[in-house]
């Protein structure tokens, strides 16, 4: 443990200079508005340098001077056609990464025609029943030239199989597919609660996808270990960081146990953190995250490849910080939170729209959110310097405290698993510990607001002026009917024998834990087996998870 001036982290300035010189450079003046030249990084002799162990100051030597973060706005609603149109609009207005939200039935592996899907089809994201929907979702978009993020977990392997299937069918080589699939099932049991199967077979599905991507999709990130939802469920920043990294270690242990070499897959693991409103604590969280990951990957898991030890992450501003009251205030909150993500060195960023406490964003609100990132990137000048807050007594101290608090939680989990983080995390999922820790923190926060110890502007203070109508996005209820027609039509024209064969194979291979399920899932996708049929086949072997009913 130590700050960036700790001798253990003594930077090699000459090596940094070589890497900086070799990196590409954006064509903008690196100077203040007064014309004063700005150095790429600041610090005393011997200070840790960006791009160097343990990466507190960032994973790259030149950070945003070479390339800005990816402005990746999460979008998805209605039918595949609707979302396809939104994707094309985002690409036209300067976004460079696609991010897909699926509706609840899809996320939970249910068809639009399932009785429990009623009222949910296409509401909170796009409805996908079969690969035909994915073909429409990405029609007119070259999968070899965009970077796609898909937010799906318990149904991740089935959805990934469809994406690969679309690529295969449109002649894009698998090794050209670029993007991320969330595929982080552990936090579902802890926070987001979109699980289907029990934890152990679910971890197998994650591991199968990691192995498949490692072999065939070199530009794909097969897991995005996510603290975002843990935080939204009410955790503190310390818990967000500790639980997320512990989940990351659990996936690493699962892949190693499956016979993979750590340096073969670890460079493709990525992370996803929340950017909440406590500005400096958030920045310290990102800095500590990189340092902790680096040390654990090298010292505990024997990673030798530097890239295995470099934590890279996506950031999204905090949905829970937004208010339905005086919603324009959310523009200010999002700007502050996004700035924390950038000063913390994020690799990609989603800014929430100001109307998201009321409904899914309108197109206008989504554009303002993207423009907020562009103001930070183009106008503010903060992108000229790597880790501009490095060396701040406050931020360095917070970073160290974040690290030691997280290590205390790791020690508890490690003990719960008798020296295995995977077993420790699973044990604590099974006994409901994570849920109850997160709910306790949420309650403490709520009580602080109730007691007026923390002012949420517009909610428990400064409440005058909440009088304007905010236009919200209207989701046509006819979406459900249209989706049901599409599904019926696909079921009509697909080859029933192929469907039966695919499902038989899936069930057979699910029963054998030594088989990687991805090839069977890709075959099923290409036969237009529905996501619900796939889930049922797996559920018949894996079983269903029910949470212990504890508050």
């Amino acid at each position, binding site marked *: 443990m130590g700050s960036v001036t700790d001798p253990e982290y003594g930077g090699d300035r000459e090596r940094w200079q070589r890497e900086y010189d070799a990196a590409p450079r954006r064509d903008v003046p690196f100077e203040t508005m007064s014309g004063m030249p700005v150095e790429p990084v600041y610090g005393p002799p011997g200070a840790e340098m960006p791009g160097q162990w343990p990466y507190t100051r960032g994973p790259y030597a030149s950070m945003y001077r070479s390339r800005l973060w990816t402005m990746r706005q999460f979008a998805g609603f209605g039918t595949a056609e609707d979302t396809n149109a939104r994707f094309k609009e985002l690409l036209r207005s300067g976004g460079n990464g696609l991010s897909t939200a699926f509706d609840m039935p899809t996320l939970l592996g249910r068809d639009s025609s399932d009785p429990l899907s009623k009222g949910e089809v296409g509401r909170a994201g796009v409805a996908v029943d079969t690969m035909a929907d994915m073909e429409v979702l990405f029609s007119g978009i070259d999968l070899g030239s965009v970077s796609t993020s898909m937010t799906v977990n318990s149904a991740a392997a089935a959805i990934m199989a469809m994406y690969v299937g679309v690529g295969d069918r449109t002649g894009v080589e698998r090794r050209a597919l670029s993007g991320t699939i969330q595929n982080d099932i552990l936090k579902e049991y802890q926070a987001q609660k979109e699980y289907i199967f029990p934890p152990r077979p679910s971890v197998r599905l994650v591991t199968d996808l990691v192995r498949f991507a490692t072999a065939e999709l070199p530009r794909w990130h097969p897991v995005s270990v996510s603290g975002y939802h843990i935080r939204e469920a009410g955790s503190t920043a310390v818990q967000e960081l500790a639980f997320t990294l512990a989940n990351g270690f659990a996936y690493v242990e699962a892949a190693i146990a499956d016979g993979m070499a750590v340096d073969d897959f670890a460079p493709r693991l990525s992370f996803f953190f929340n950017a909440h409103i406590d500005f400096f604590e958030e920045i310290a969280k990102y800095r500590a995250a990189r340092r902790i990951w680096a040390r654990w990957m090298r010292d505990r898991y024997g990673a030798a490849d530097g890239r295995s030890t470099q934590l890279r992450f996506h950031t999204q501003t905090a949905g829970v910080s937004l208010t339905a009251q005086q919603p324009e205030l959310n523009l200010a909150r999002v700007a502050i939170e996004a700035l924390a993500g950038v000063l913390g060195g994020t690799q990609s960023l989603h800014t929430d729209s100001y109307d998201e406490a009321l409904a899914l964003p309108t197109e206008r609100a989504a554009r303002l959110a993207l423009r907020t990132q562009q103001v930070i990137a183009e106008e503010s000048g903060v992108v000229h310097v790597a880790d501009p807050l490095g060396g701040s007594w406050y931020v360095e101290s917070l970073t160290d405290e974040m690290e030691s608090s997280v290590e205390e939680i790791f020690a508890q989990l490690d003990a719960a698993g008798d020296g295995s983080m995977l077993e420790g995390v699973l044990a604590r999922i099974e006994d409901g510990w994570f849920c109850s820790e997160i709910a306790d923190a949420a309650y403490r926060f709520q009580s602080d607001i109730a007691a007026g110890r923390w002012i949420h502007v517009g909610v428990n203070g400064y409440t005058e002026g909440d009088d304007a109508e905010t236009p919200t996005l209207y989701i046509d209820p006819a979406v459900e009917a249209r989706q049901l027609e599409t599904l019926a039509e696909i079921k009509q024209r697909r080859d029933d024998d192929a469907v039966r064969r695919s499902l038989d194979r899936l069930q057979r291979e699910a029963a054998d834990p030594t088989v990687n399920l991805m090839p069977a899932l890709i075959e099923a996708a290409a036969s237009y087996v529905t996501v619900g049929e796939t889930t049922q086949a797996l559920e018949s072997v894996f079983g269903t998870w029910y949470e212990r009913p504890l*508050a």
Partner: protein
Amino acid sequence: MTGPAPLTAMPIPGRPLRVLLAKVGLDGHDRGLRVVARILRDGGCEVVFAGLRQTPESIAAAAAQEDVDVVGVSMHNGAHLTLAPAVVQALRHAGLDTPVVVGGIVPAVDVGRLHEAGVVGVLGPGASNDEVLATVKHAALTRVSSTPPPAARPSA
């Protein structure tokens, strides 16, 4: 924090208020429900936490079995106009007059429609701890004032 004073008016004298808390349907946002569980406990209530993915029928069955005074359901997916009335109906079909409180994201225009459907109280994201307790207590009292004591109710 000094918690709110325990409820003094109990539907059954000498017994704490019993509240069933559940989410209906696929929606997994349970932060609000868990916070409410803690607010009620600190306020002196007994909480029966049914948790996620309940159906109107499973809620009615649990309400009967646990003999609760109030049912609280939480919704964040915009399905409240379908699901909340269904919960009220399922309770009535089971012969229960248990009052229902809805919490979560409910647009102001829908509150009146929920009341028409028999929902006694609606709690939004800005509700304070005191409002949560007061709403649940009020809901329990509506039942006490309008119905015979539980012993006389049909067992479902």
